[in-house]
């Protein structure tokens, strides 16, 4: 039986295995390991002959199949772990295949839902040209967006190659106060402006840490009117509630 299959069509070894079981019309709970292993290895071999790189995952599955096949050839010793362990060496594989099949099916059904800009369209909304903050519809900024924005800034700053080792003592608490002061004065501030005064990479990092601390303490709010627009910081508590006594290095855990 010749098998003309390209691995590119498969999303992974589980996908390929499911395909083989289906084309052979096998019962998934009673996989004929000899047959399936032989066919699977034939496909991998074919790929190698075509000088294609076979991804490690496919090789790992080949090893798993051979391992299961060999375990099935060995006689089962009844006395040992008769009911504790799964008796059928294929059980784990079957479970994974069924689970995988479930999500593959779910993926297909997701694709059938009316998707934006494919099946369903919205009015082209032209954003009014202001960066007002504080509306309820603001997109919530997640940690991933914050980290990505910070990474972008770090990339923009040039690194000074000066070989003078000075131990700088930057305090997160100091920067926490600095941010609070700035916000107190201006009401709101954009994420990138926060780093304008930072001279060094360390200062930027400490500023970022201080900002995260403030978010954690729910003292500032971070928002964005539309994705990819500037990220804005504003106070989440009234300025009167900001006693300097509540914050020191020790309380922040950096002491």
């Amino acid at each position, binding site marked *: 039986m010749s098998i003309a299959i390209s691995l590119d069509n498969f*999303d*992974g*070894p*589980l*996908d390929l295995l499911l395909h083989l079981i289906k084309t052979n019309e096998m*019962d*998934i*709970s009673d996989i004929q390991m000899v047959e399936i292993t032989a066919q699977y290895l034939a496909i991998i071999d074919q790929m190698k002959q075509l000088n294609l790189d076979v*991804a490690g*995952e496919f090789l790992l*599955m080949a090893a798993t199949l051979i391992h299961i096949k060999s375990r099935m050839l060995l006689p089962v010793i009844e006395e040992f772990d008769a009911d504790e362990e799964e008796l059928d060496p294929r*059980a784990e594989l*079957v*479970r*994974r295949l*069924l*689970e*995988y*099949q*479930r*999500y*593959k*099916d*779910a*993926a*297909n*059904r*997701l*694709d059938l*839902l*009316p*998707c*934006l*800009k*494919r*099946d*369903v*369209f*919205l*009015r082209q*909304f032209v*954003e009014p040209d202001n960066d007002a903050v504080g509306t*309820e*519809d603001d*997109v*919530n900024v*997640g*940690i*991933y967006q914050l*980290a*990505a924005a910070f*990474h972008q800034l770090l990339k923009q700053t040039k690194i000074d190659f000066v070989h003078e080792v000075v131990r700088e003592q930057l305090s997160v608490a100091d920067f926490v106060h600095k941010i609070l002061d700035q916000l107190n004065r201006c009401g709101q501030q954009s994420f990138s402006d926060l780093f304008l005064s930072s001279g060094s990479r360390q200062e930027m990092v400490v500023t970022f840490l201080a900002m995260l601390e403030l978010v954690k303490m729910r003292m500032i709010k971070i928002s964005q009117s*539309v*994705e990819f627009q500037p990220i804005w910081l504003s106070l989440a508590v009234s300025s009167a509630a900001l006693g300097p006594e509540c914050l020191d290095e020790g309380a922040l855990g950096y002491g």
Partner: protein
Amino acid sequence: MDERCRAIAALIFAAGSPLSLDRLCQLFDCSRSDLRPVISQLQEFYPLKQGGFYLAEIAGGYQFRTDPDLSPWLVLLSRERPFRFSQAALETLAMIAYRQPVTRGEIEYLRGVDSGGVLKTLLDKGFLRILGKKDVPGRPLMYGTSRHFLEFFGLKDLSALPTLKEFSALDPALDPLLDSGSGQIESEKNLSAQQSADEIETLIE
């Protein structure tokens, strides 16, 4: 329709993203129970397949959307090619949608392949959110779906996802294992602490 009713319709029409009931209550200074009948009145007024667009309930809010069966015409208007998911991206998204919060290790065990690239793409496109770190060795990141995910697929919330179909072509005695066992899976243990720390960085690079 009274003026408030018309105003709500106009607001939903003019808003850039789905307007939630809470937001409307705030704007009109009234309670949810006041506005619910107004919303259902509007939904009756703007049903599917009547006027070309309908009032949809999306991501906990309300929004006007075009009727899905009209897409062949709408595609003519839009200059960008419709966004298509790869099979790998859809599969990964489905796993995250149904199992969130879920770690990269769990996804890779389920799929049997490395999923870092797919995860990064989904994060960049805004379909995913990082929900925190799992309290297991290595503290891997936990992923879930975002609000944009709901808007994209036109879902009112996560419970509106199509139900997961059980494939029980195997011994029913094994079935419970399908749901329980995989939570704390072995591949998890292989995730070293360093790997997890690197995870967010490699995703951003």
